[in-house]
């Protein structure tokens, strides 16, 4: 087991109001989320001395303007002018989960005391994947000429592979979309709060990239979320109950650029990250009371459930049936609604929910008797990270 288990905790969390269009600059969303997280902890902004983020915009063909389409560490530093700042970082090989892990390492190293981690996501006007030009250079020369554009198609090919290899049907995925939308109705910060989804809606929706219909894809939004991370001893003196970090992992496998559709890559990415997390925390999938698994495209949940070890390969769509992922089910899943409910904010929302469930702060969606709270943030193949938060340090 990891000697540093439960020595770092998530304290406060914060959100901006996610909107469909970019009415106010992204920097304002990030600021609102960071201020919210600091206030939730009962800290003052002057106490914050560490900053970490993953600022990438996953949309292509749009100008990258700091403060408008991304919010970098530099942008946040310029806004906040933190008098006590001692440490900051942006990560690249992992999504926002990697920023949280680096902040954890910085806290353990003693180079900062209260770190803020945020994820801000822009929704550009016009087509999200605005694939430009007449040429396909780099890795795209083997995919672009055939109409493989955005990441959705890359995910979709692995999904057809999974479905047909395992003689499964996409109809079963309706349970995930509908259950998560039900959970969303307990999350006032979610984009789809107040909008219900039926099985009929799912089956009637337009196809985007088969096997993905509209409700298999998270909706692009403009928004941000943030957390305050600190050492456990300090977290106990703050306002909210701490969510102790029992272990983490990151994906240790990567494809050569431009290779597309390999299902085994998702599995190897996910299992390598989860293995580290189970070993460091000492828990197994059977110990988990509640799970958040990244769902930017619904099939990510399949790869997550299987590669993390919650069910066998080929069984994920059967696993999610019969009420198992409901709030009172055997493995309550994406209890905040997932990205399919909140809109496209990437994995920090999953991490926030994992922490809220562990600290007993999830309100009307709180799962009963949670101690072990699992998070798979980001799609396993690409930038995947995994975490376990617990209520009781051990």
């Amino acid at each position: 087991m990891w000697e540093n288990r439960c020595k770092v905790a998530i304290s406060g969390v914060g959100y901006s109001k996610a909107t469909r269009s970019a009415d106010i600059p992204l920097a304002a969303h990030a600021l609102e989320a960071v201020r919210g997280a600091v206030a939730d902890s009962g800290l003052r902004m002057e106490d914050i001395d560490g900053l970490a983020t993953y600022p990438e915009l996953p949309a292509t063909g749009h100008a990258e303007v700091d403060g408008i389409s991304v919010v970098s560490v530099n942008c946040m530093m310029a806004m906040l002018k933190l008098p006590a700042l001692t440490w900051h970082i942006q990560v690249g090989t992992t999504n926002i989960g990697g920023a949280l892990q680096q902040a954890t390492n910085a806290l353990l190293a003693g180079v900062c005391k209260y770190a803020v981690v945020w994820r801000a996501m822009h929704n550009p006007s016009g087509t999200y994947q605005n694939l430009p030009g007449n040429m396909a250079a780099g890795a795209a020369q083997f995919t672009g000429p055939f109409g493989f554009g955005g990441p959705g198609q890359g995910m979709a090919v692995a999904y057809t592979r999974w479905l047909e290899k395992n003689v499964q049907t996409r109809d079963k995925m309706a349970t995930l979309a509908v259950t998560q939308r039900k959970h969303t109705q307990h999350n006032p910060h979610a984009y789809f709060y107040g909008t219900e989804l039926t099985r009929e809606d799912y089956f009637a929706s337009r196809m985007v990239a088969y096997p993905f219909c509209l409700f298999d894809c998270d909706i692009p939004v403009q928004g941000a979320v943030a957390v305050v991370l600190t050492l456990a001893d300090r977290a106990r003196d703050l306002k909210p109950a701490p969510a102790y970090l029992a272990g983490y992992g990151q994906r240790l496998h990567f494809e050569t650029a431009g290779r597309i559709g390999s299902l085994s890559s998702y599995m190897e990415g996910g299992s390598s990250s989860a293995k580290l997390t189970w070993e460091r925390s000492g828990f197994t999938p059977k110990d988990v009371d509640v799970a958040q698994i990244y769902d930017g495209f619904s099939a990510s949940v399949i790869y997550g459930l299987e590669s993390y070890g919650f069910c066998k390969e080929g069984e994920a769509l059967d696993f999610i049936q019969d009420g198992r992922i409901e709030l009172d089910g055997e493995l309550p899943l994406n209890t905040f609604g997932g990205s399919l409910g909140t809109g496209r904010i990437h994995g920090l929302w999953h991490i926030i929910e994992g922490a809220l469930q562990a600290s007993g702060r999830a309100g009307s969606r709180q799962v009963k008797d949670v101690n072990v709270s699992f998070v798979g943030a980001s799609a396993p193949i690409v930038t995947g990270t995994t975490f376990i938060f617990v209520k009781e340090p051990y």
Partner: protein
Amino acid sequence: MSDWSKVTRPIPVPNEWTRPFWAAAKRESLELQRCQSCGHFQHPPFATCTQCISIDLKFEPVRGVGTIYAYTIMYHTGDKRFASAVPYASIVVELDDAPGALMAGNLLGVEYTEAKVGRRVEVVFEKLNDDITLPQWRLAND
């Protein structure tokens, strides 16, 4: 059947690693990068053998027959260059001669509904301009 006649395919830009692939395709031949140490074929081309880390790699001909490893049917019209062809099948092919080397392409000449995992396909060459010819796929007779 998908109407490809109005599609503007982006044209591949060969680089140091990929130039031999496109030169072969122009001659209507399929050549993939092969490790001269362990014999492993790979695609897309990479700096090292993804099996044994050797840097001794050469392009060698492979037979243009294989199976559909995976596919997607595109309905979204966000990519205007391809909007006129929807719905269309983008497929991933695993060649008989190069297991694990996955090649993207389109399934041509049949309804997009014919795309299924495991279906046998063979290469056809689609000339884009004087320099670039794309390897594409149709259902095989075998």
